[in-house]
């Protein structure tokens, strides 16, 4: 464990540095401010609020007894962060592609570690920073608004609301990592990841009214969040991105540990 902790520490210091960590921090700060500033959109505050009323008084009057609604709307805030996740994960995954092309990965795989251990460390360092930043920024924004509205948060609903954000992150991470491993080139990895993540969404949106149009994020997660807002939990909306992520990560793991040649 000490060896793995050392590797994690070394890789964290190497990967989470300028400009990656600054990019994630800046995006998370922007998201937090955005969600707080647009509380009326994300929390569906009815129109007709008198001008000049203090924010706290307005929120208390409108949302004091709607703690559940506040939490439900948190899910929409996470969906709004799709772009955040795409940018953060594409940037982090491209570091893996760069390490494959520069020979740094060869250095790592020549050290006394199992390939699975190196994969675990690299995957953790790619997946966790944006995910934690996203959840933290949403938690901060929710806390600020909830404090102003004097609302409480039901943990069960909070969990359901956070699920689309987590699934979104895992999906984008698995796609970006797969493309990075396959391309082994920084520029190709960035371009191909952006093309796939936005291209697949754009292509599926073309299938208007077809169930296929809501197969992948962000469309399927929007559907989940809308249903949750109406009091229904559409678990099946999460199945496709979760299955796709699991399949991609399994392939990545086996490729990295059994087939990758450097």
């Amino acid at each position, binding site marked *: 464990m*000490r*060896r793995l902790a*050392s*590797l994690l*520490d*070394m890789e964290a*210091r*190497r990967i989470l*540095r300028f400009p990656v960590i600054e990019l994630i921090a800046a995006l998370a700060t922007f998201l937090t401010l955005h969600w707080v500033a647009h509380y009326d959109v994300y929390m569906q505050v009815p129109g007709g609020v008198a001008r000049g009323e203090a924010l706290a008084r307005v929120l208390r009057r409108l949302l004091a007894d709607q703690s559940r609604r506040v939490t439900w709307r948190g899910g929409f805030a996470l969906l709004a962060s799709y772009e955040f996740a795409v940018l953060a994960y594409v940037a982090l995954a491209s570091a893996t592609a760069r*390490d494959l092309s*520069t*020979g*740094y990965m*060869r*250095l790592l*795989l*020549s*050290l*006394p*570690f*199992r*390939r699975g251990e190196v994969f675990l460390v690299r995957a953790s360092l790619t997946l966790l920073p944006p995910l934690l930043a996203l959840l933290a920024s949403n938690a901060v924004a929710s806390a600020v608004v909830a404090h102003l509205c004097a609302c409480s948060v039901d943990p069960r609903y909070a969990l359901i609301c956070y699920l689309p954000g987590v699934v979104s992150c895992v999906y984008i991470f698995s796609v970006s990592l797969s493309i990075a491993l396959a391309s082994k080139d920084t520029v190709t990895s960035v371009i191909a990841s952006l093309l796939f993540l936005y291209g697949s969404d754009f292509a599926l949106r073309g299938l208007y009214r077809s169930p296929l149009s809501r197969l992948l994020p962000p469309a399927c997660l929007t559907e989940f969040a809308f249903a949750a807002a109406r009091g229904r939990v559409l678990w099946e909306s999460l199945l496709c991105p979760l299955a796709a992520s699991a399949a991609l990560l399994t392939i990545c793991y086996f490729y990295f540990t059994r087939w990758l*040649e*450097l």
Partner: protein
Amino acid sequence: MVLELRGVSKSYGRVRALRGLTMSVGRGVTGLVGPNGAGKTTTIKISLGLLRADEGIVRFFGLDPWVDGYEVRRRVGVLHERPSYPGDLTGLQFLKYVASFYGVRDCARRAAEVLRLVGLEFAAHRPIKSYSAGMVQRLGIAKAIVGEPEFVVLDEPTANLDPTSRAEILDLILTLHEDEGMSFLISTHVLSELERVCDRVLVMCGGRVVAEGTLSELIDRYGLAEYVVELPEPRALAGRLANLDFVEEVRVDEKRGRVLVRARDAYALTKAVFEAALELNLRVVSVRPRYGALEQVYRRVVGRETAGVATGHGG
């Protein structure tokens, strides 16, 4: 034997890098030489489990490095060709991490000690990205030995180093071998380096080993072939040497004042040169091999192989 490869082949698309390579490396310092594209780096990568052989058997410490890579790498330190390091870390930080990966007890002490051994203690606290190419090479050697491995693989260890640094690194290799019992496999183009440090040499060409043995065995087998005799009147001596039965070829370089002789017997040639000099009253400045001992072997072996390939007789 520490490392054994039997009938190993490896292709990159249509390019065949290794063609049924069979070789073995024991304890001691072993040199791996060969022209560009001979398959040296591919051999090293396959030995470390970074590449998978298309066919053949590879055993490092009796283990298959592709399957049991972890067990192999625990006992082996490596310097890769054109290495890449975490540039934001200092040399000392990086070596402390590597030492901890190998389970070294006092990582800080060992890292500082190795930095001193490779002559980098003055840059211990500087980020690696500020290192010169020579310093990076020294750091790579430090990284290869900091884990106190049983066996060290060095791919072009003296690339980017000035002559003084090269000599220091070679001395370090000898010291580590003699004092700490580390064994080395050194791949290099600089043959004079191998002459200084290697117990055994493997010559690769066209993806297979074409000659192997100790340096004296190779010299006996392939002979010291070409000699240079320096004197002010080369033509007179050349005429005399050309008639000797152990002399294969004589060329005169009047501009530089020397005779180039290809001969089978070094002792007989030296004797004949000085006899002729006395007889003809010539002032011989020097008689010496045209190339270093290993370089002569290398040129003969590789020259023969490439000529064989060119005429369709190569393997």
